Every structure is written in C-alpha cells, then in structure tokens.
C-alpha cells in the first residue's frame, strides 16, 4: 500500500468523523435550545401539514429568497440544484451494485457540474460587484465559493480533460467502507479534488454551511401558527408559573 493511499484513507476517515460528529453536535444544540414563543413569520400555515409544505418550498425552491433577490436566487438555486445532482451522481462510487435511480441521473449529473460552477461564478460576481454584499462579506465568504468552485472545476477536468481510473477510485472508497484498503490512483487532479472535498467536510460544522441543518430549525419557518389554541411553554419558562 502506498503512503499516499494511507494518507488519503486517514484523511477521509477523519473528515467523515468531523462532519458527522460536528454536524450531529450542532443539530443537538439546535434541537435542545427551546423556542419559548411562537414567532412564525406570518402569514403562516395553521397546520403541521402546512408547515411541511412551507419548509418544502423553502428547501427545494428557496421561496423566500425568490421574493427577496432574483439574481441571487437564480445563481444560488442553479448552484444548489447542480450540487445536489452532482452529489447524487457521486453515490455510484459508494454503491455496488449502483442503485437504479442513480444510474438514471448519470447523464444529467454531468451538466449539473457545469451548472454548479456557473452558479458559483454568478454568486462570486455578485459578492464582488454589489457594494452592499461586498460590505457584509468576510474573507471566508469568498474562500467558501472558491473552494466549492475548485472542487467543481477539478471534477469537471477529470470528466472532460484528464481522465482518472474511476474503477480504482471506486475500489478505494468501497474499501474505506468495508475496512479493506485498496490503492488510490496518484493522479494530481484527483488528489487535489479529494483533498478539497475533505477540507469542505471538515469545515462544514464550523462554518456558515450550517445553514443546511439550520433552516429546518428556524422558528420563523417551522412553527405552526396556532398560539391562541395552544400554549407554547418552554421548560425554562415554567418556573415563572410556580411563583
């Protein structure tokens, strides 16, 4: 086994652990903090089903963003949908046999890669060009886009320019899952691609990428508008009742 393979194996175990434990911890923190008052942004659904529909529209269509900023919506949505398809497409590296729907989306997955990078470029442009968005950006906000962009570009390079041995890559990842290491091809672009992905996984739980779990915990979006019908007493607020 080459040294490189071992390094990447350790890296991916580590990154996976950080991602799972980090995001899990954060979800626990979000879930544990009570929402002591009803604060849905109204008009809001009056039933649980309505809330699920609202959340669905937010997560899948970015409904509120659409109301708020059309260009950002366009770039952002194209990027995320691209990312989503690309991620699904990548599932084939982890499954054997490959799940049928994953087979099905393979051709779209390729275009999705371009869409993702184009969306990121649009977002980067907006961040740089709109004075207000530039004002609120920290270095990390640019770097995040650069990171994702480089992941996308290096991926596209491998699809279209310098191919790598994807059978071997698949064996490497299957090997990680079954605890039986197999050799990773030493192609520079592949190594860069994987390094950046591992970095993304590691910073996920300590960065603004927490918006992904965060949205599901946002009280202005996930609460049922029924405060006159039901009390909504938080555990910590109960002590006032006893006084």
């Amino acid at each position: 086994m080459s040294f490189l393979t071992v390094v990447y194996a350790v890296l991916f175990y580590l990154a996976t652990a950080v991602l799972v434990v980090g995001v899990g911890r954060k979800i626990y923190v979000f879930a544990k903090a009570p929402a002591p008052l009803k604060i849905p942004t109204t008009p809001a659904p009056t039933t649980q089903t309505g809330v699920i529909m609202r959340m669905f529209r937010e997560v899948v269509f970015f409904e509120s963003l659409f109301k708020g900023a059309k260009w950002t919506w366009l770039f952002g949505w194209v990027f995320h949908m691209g990312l989503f398809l690309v991620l699904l497409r990548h599932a084939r590296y982890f499954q054997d046999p490959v799940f049928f729907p994953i087979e099905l989306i393979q051709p779209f997955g390729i275009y999705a890669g371009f869409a993702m990078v184009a969306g990121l470029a649009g977002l980067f442009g907006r961040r740089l060009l709109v004075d207000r968005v530039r004002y609120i950006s920290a270095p990390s906000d640019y770097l995040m886009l650069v990171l994702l962009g480089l992941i996308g570009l290096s991926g596209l390079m491998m699809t279209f320019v310098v191919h790598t041995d994807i059978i071997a890559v698949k064996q490497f990842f299957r090997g990680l899952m079954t605890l039986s290491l197999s050799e990773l091809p030493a192609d520079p672009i592949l190594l860069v691609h994987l390094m950046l992905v591992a970095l993304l996984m590691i910073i996920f739980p300590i960065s603004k990428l927490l918006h992904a779990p965060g949205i599901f915990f946002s009280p202005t979006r996930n609460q049922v508008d029924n405060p006159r019908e039901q009390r909504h007493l938080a555990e910590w607020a109960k002590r006032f009742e006893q006084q």
Partner: protein
Amino acid sequence: MAKADFEVPELQEYTEVPKYVEGTMAHSSPYVAKPDHNTPLGFPGELVPDWHEKTLEAMGDLLGKYRSFQVYLDSCVKCGACTDKCHYYLGTSDPKNMPVARQDLLRKVYRRYFTFAGKYFPKLVGAADLTREVLDEWYSYFHQCSQCRRCSVFCPYGIDTAEISMAAREILDRIGYGQKYCNEIIAKVHKVGNNLGMPGPAIRDTLDGLEEDVLEETGVAVKYPLDVKGADILFVTPSADFFAEPHIDGLIGYGKVLHECGVSWTFSTKASEAGNFGMFIGSYENMRRVSMRIREAAIDLGVKRIVFGECGHAWRVAYAFLNTLAGPWDFLDPNYPVPQHICEFTWDAIQQGKLKFDKSANDDKVLTFHDSCNVARATRMGDKPGGQFEIPRNVIKAVCNNYVDMEADTIKERTFCCGGGGGLLTDDLMELRVKGIVPRMNALNNVVQEHGVTHMAAICAICKSQFTKVIPYYGFEMDQIVSVHQLVSNAILLTGQGESDDDSDEDDE
C-alpha cells in the same frame, strides 16, 4: 413643515436602494436608562464594572434559551437578500442598518467567543473582540431596529433581525445599559398599569367626557365602562387611545360598535394598557409581568372574553404570546378566541348584519391602509392566514366608499414600518424616525398623487403617533392619519340615533 436640524430626505417616486455611506447614523443613540428606570425591571441600575464577563455570560444564557438566537447566529450565509429590505437602511444609507450587518455587530462577538473558527481564525471569519466601542455600537444600532421583521420575510432561512435586536437589548439590560424610553415606560406599567402612568380617576374622567360627547353628537347614551365587575368582555387598549388624536376617535368607535352589538363590556384600570414594551427589550420576564396584569384583571372582573383595541405590537403579544405568558384561559368562554382583535369583532358583527352604516359619512375622504408590521408579519386575524390583511380592509371598505391600496411591494407582508416601532418612538431618535419613514412616505405620496388619497388609516398606536408627528416633515397634515374605528365611528348608525336626533331637533324648536 416641521423644522429639523438634519437634512430631511426628498421623496422619490420609487424608493431607490442607496449606495452605502459609512457612519451616517453612528451618532444616533437614545438616552440611557437611569437606575430608577432599571431597578424596577430587575436590572442593575447602571453599567456594571464587570460588563465584559457579564455580557458574554448573558449571551451564553440566551443561546441556550432561544433557539432563534442560536440558529440565526450560525446560519446566515451572507447572501445579501436582506440588505435592501430595511427602511432604516433605505432612509439613512448607513450600511450598519442593513439587517445582516446589524446582526453581524453581535455575530462577530458570538463568533469570537463561542465558535471554533472565531477563536482560532478571527480575521478569516470576521470575528472581533468585545470592547467598549463594540458595546456602544450595539447600543446605537440595536436601537435603530424597529423589530419590524421585514428582513425575515426575504431571508432564505427566515433569519429575523428582530430576534437578534431583542436579544441584544436583553443583554444590554442585564449589564445595566438599557434604554431610557422603554425602561421608564415598563416601570410605569408595573407601578400604575399603563405606559402613560394615567391613574384610574383620570381615565374615568376622560371616559365621562366621551360619553357626553357621543350623547351630544348622536343622541344615544353610549357607555364607556371602567372596572365593571361581571361584564362579559374585558376591553384592553393602548393607553394612547384614552387621550391622543386620532387614537381617541378610534376608541369612540369601539364603544359604539360594542354598544350596538348589545354586549356588556368594560375597560380595566389594572389592565389599562394593551402595549407591552417588555417585548421590545426582549425580556421574557418583564413581558410576562405586564401580561399578567391582564389575567388578573380578567379574574377580578369575572369577564368571559378579552378583546384588544388597535395596536400593532400589543396585538403581537396578545395574539402570539398571551396564551403562553399568562394562560391558560380555561376560565373564559371557549366559544371565542382569546384574545380577539376589535377588527375581528367588528367584522363578525358586520357579517351578521348587526351594524348599519351610512358610508357617505366618509365621502370626504379617499383612504389607504398602512399595514402595521407586527400585525402583518407576526399575527393573524380570523381563521385563515392573511386574515390580518383582509379583515381591516374589509372593515374599512364596509364603512367607506373610496379605498385604494398602496403599491404591492409596500403593503401586507411586505409592508414598510412607520419608522417608530420597536421602542424607538422617542424624541431623542427624531432623525432616525424622520429618515426611517421614507419608504412609507414614498408609497403614500404615490397614491396621493395618482389616486387622490387624502387619508391613511392604521391600527396601531405607535404607527399613529409616529405618523402624526413625522408626516408634517414631508408636507402632509397630521389629521390625514386616522384610526380604522374612527372611520367606523363616523359611519355607524346607532339604533335610535335618527329618532333621538328628531327629538332633540324638536326640543330645540
């Protein structure tokens, strides 16, 4: 036109998004609360010496108590969708009045002390140390947010800057750095029962005067009861309704509607305030204490229902929080929502044919309606989402012939704040109030020019006070602002009104 020692913005046809200009409102800061204002609320009298430690402690405490605070501090992606949504940014061009930048004032400290990235890579993620300058900046800019929630409508995660402002003010209060205007008022409510510190006899006096006026005007003896035990309805209204124009004309209207429906009702001295500034300072405990007065009054008087008068933030506390803070209301009549809004009450009565109107009484006016932020984005009326927009409009249209809406981007869930909400309705923030009203003024001016609108109706005591004071800066007259129930009052035909008119005419002859 009113005079100002700052430049009053020019009205535009459409509110344009300005390029930012740093520091234009850095000097804006309301008077700091004195020990007399702070201690009755349970806060330290003045800035504590160990404020640094106490600030972080308070922040940590709130992170564990409010999911909104924790999730919103972590989730913002700096997409910028909210940056052009705040009336204070649009009116002042100060970038720190962009909702996300306002949050960042606090978020940068959160990151520095509570997150891995901020502890080890502060520059990279825009984290910053907590210093006295940062604290003063919080004090300034978290008192330039009217907690109107307009930003939360457009944020992809519903991040509500109002929640951050409330938390910031709670933190400031806990270190003895509160705002005079809010804390003085809350102290008055705890002591006397209303924001204005009006004692019971003064209220009774006013109500006697109103009874005489209404009798004279209509010939019908409409009663405005106070502290009547055994009445069916406890009526809770903002104390401005007892004395200020145009609020009091609205109060006259409530009385006429209740009289005509034949219900027994009463005001209460103990609960002579619908408003609850505890919300503005983000203090659950103070908000609860103020709310409990209503519960106590309801029990003391033995009422069966509770109805609220026209007030925006009061309706938010009433509709969204009262059940949680001061419930359960199991001793009240379960056939009615607790509490009810007077507009819901009036609209029900109209639909049941209980009220008769002469709409021509309002023919001297062409009306538009200002959706108050708290009603629009934090509550509901009736049983369908959006009832808070339809019901007040339905009531207005039932009593007026001429009604026009302002531009769609400035009403309903997208309504612009009056510029004086969230505990900013104080003379020491006049510049902010005059500039923050700009988007609303532009929209109003448009319908005035294009549709001949003469009056703007509102259902909020703060909106009405802010408008009557500030629209003169833009060449409007203060009496162009009306209460919705003032319009009802103008048009309603009370049973016996015609007859007694005749009687009195005969008497005169």
